[in-house]
């Protein structure tokens, strides 16, 4: 019997048992949908996070912090490690001389604080930086409105887009050119005192996204480092960002070592590449785990298919007898049964991929709309449906269906025509 006729015959048999076939297919649909949804969500998330990290942390940068072995700084680091070691802003000169592979370095101070205007009080992270150097390291340090002063006055500031538009819903509380109060709670004295000064907003940054953890942030307020030093009353900085001339692994490793050695292991040096690598491997494991769980539902679907095939075998014993009496070979009978489950698997997989992607899109929408982002737009995920996932889902859906149909199909093919014809 020709394959096309085998499929035609099988398809006809499926059509006749619409409801039952639909229910069997539903099992496959659910299993495949679960797998596809999980995969496209996690892959989309991974891509979003990695790309935002890549943006926020150029691959050729190193972050130098006081060794965090037993940090007593608490909260947002005070730049003092357990060993009493502190980083100072002027260490950048020392660091620059450590290796010819170093392009430049920039010190960053940061404190939790808030800004205040007539009708807005908004918590923020206040960064003290050298605007020029910082912009060189991070291309995302770019003004959407206003500008980033190259030679800032001491009362000029640049703010992230969620500082002047906390809701990200079009309501702008202030803009470039306006005046705001920058404040922090100084807890280095007792009792803690609120300290503040008046600054002019020179520019508002372009939207960065949720993961520029060490780079520019939408919730950051950027002030000149000199202003920060006097405002926070210290020359200590929280980290020094080192830009390398290239992002080779060898360069990253050797410069990292040179810096840690120079500071007698009292600093920790992290490279974003390593961080992204680690994150990727965490994601891979997570994905494997989730897909493993989803695969169990497919297994259940497979057992459902096997059950249906047995019912079908019993119901169609006489039909099989007729087919064999007309000269159909055992292997064609086997093919007919396998083709039936393959068709169910194919339909289930295609529908499952569609449904799974749809689910992923809904979940992504929910996440992006801020249920988990804490106020909107922090994490824009686009579910990612790769050709590999599509091919895998198809293969898996059809494969499971066919594998579980093998035994019933084999039993059907082994029926003797006389016995099958006598069956009532």
């Amino acid at each position, binding site marked *: 019997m020709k394959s096309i006729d085998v499929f035609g*015959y099988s398809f006809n048999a499926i059509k006749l048992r619409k409801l039952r076939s639909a229910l069997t297919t539903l099992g496959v649909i659910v299993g495949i949908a679960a797998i596809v949804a999980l995969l496209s969500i996690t892959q989309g998330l991974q891509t979003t996070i990695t790309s935002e990290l890549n943006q926020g942390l150029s691959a050729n940068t190193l972050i130098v912090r006081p060794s965090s072995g037993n940090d007593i700084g608490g909260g947002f680091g005070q730049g003092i490690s357990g060993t009493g070691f502190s980083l100072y802003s002027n260490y950048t000169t020392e660091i620059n001389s450590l290796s010819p592979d170093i392009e430049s370095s920039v010190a960053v101070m940061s404190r939790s604080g808030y800004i205040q205007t007539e009708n807005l009080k908004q918590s923020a992270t206040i960064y003290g930086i050298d605007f020029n150097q910082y912009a060189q390291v991070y291309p995302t340090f770019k003004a959407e409105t206003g500008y980033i002063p190259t030679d800032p006055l001491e009362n000029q500031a640049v703010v992230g887009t969620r500082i002047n538009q906390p809701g990200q819903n079009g309501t702008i509380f202030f803009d470039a050119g306006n005046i705001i109060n920058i404040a922090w709670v100084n807890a280095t004295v007792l009792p803690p005192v609120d300290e503040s000064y008046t600054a002019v907003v020179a520019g508002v940054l372009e939207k960065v996204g949720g993961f520029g953890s060490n780079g520019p942030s939408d919730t950051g307020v950027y002030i000149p480092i000199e202003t920060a030093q006097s405002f926070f009353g210290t020359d200590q900085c929280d980290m020094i960002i080192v830009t390398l001339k290239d992002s080779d692994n060898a360069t990253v490793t050797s410069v990292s070592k040179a810096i840690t050695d120079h500071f007698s292991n009292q600093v920790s040096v992290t490279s974003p590449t390593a961080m992204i690598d680690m994150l990727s491997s965490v994601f891979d494991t997570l994905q494997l785990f989730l897909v493993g769980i989803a695969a169990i539902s497919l297994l259940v679907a497979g057992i459902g298919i096997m059950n249906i095939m047995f019912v079908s075998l019993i119901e169609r014993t006489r039909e099989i007898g*007729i*087919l*064999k*009496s*007309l*000269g159909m070979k055992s292997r064609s009978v086997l093919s007919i049964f396998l083709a039936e489950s393959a068709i169910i698997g194919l339909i289930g997989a295609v529908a499952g991929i569609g449904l799974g992607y749809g689910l992923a899109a809904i979940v992504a929408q929910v996440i992006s709309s801020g249920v988990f982002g804490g106020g909107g737009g922090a994490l824009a995920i686009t579910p990612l449906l790769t050709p590999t996932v599509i091919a895998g889902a198809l293969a898996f859906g059809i494969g499971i269906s066919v594998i579980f149909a093998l035994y019933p199909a084999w039993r059907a093919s082994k029926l*003797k025509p*006389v016995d099958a*014809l006598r069956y009532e």
Partner: protein
Amino acid sequence: MISKNVAVVEALNVKKTYMLGKVPVEALRGVNFRVNQGDFVSILGPSGSGKSTMLNLIGALDKPTSGTLFIDGVDIGRLNDNQLSDLRRRIGFVFQFFNLIPRLTARDNVELSMSIADMGKSERRKRALELLETVGLKERINHKPAELSGGQQQRVAIARALANNPKFLLLDEPTGNVDSKTASEVLALIQNLNKEHNVSIIMVTHDEKLARQAKRTVKMFDGEINSDVVN
């Protein structure tokens, strides 16, 4: 013209024993029997005498327990599963209860035996139409078995049996489930096939009158042939 003496079926001491649990049931107790090309044989006998068993063996649906059965010159006892399937395609079998596939139309039922024999779509569609026309069912090609009368179903079964140009046609009680008018129509059809197309016919029946219409009548009793006469 094919010689009268070419055997299409030759049974030599054929026995068939069924096992009912542990009890052996001897359905055929040593049958010797020969059908030549162009013969029209009717097999007559009481219920349980082994007629259907005999027909099933000739139709290559089963193998003898012992003895030798040549179908179209080959000993079916020596054939494997695949070879038996190939042989069945060259035999037209019309079952007592028609055995049409309920979900397929008359035309698709006839086409099915040709698609099993690897015939292409357009060719078999054309041939199915011709065959249904031959058996007088041109108007019913798109009806499913449940939408046809017993006699019409019978004729679809005959059209299906003829689809692959069989050497011989086996009919199990072809008129057992139809009225006498339909029965004589079916008989006329069979006789025509035998006379005009030289198709050998083996027909099982209960009906003495019908049996006498054949060229030869074989009487069975209790698993044996006890008479074989030319009418």
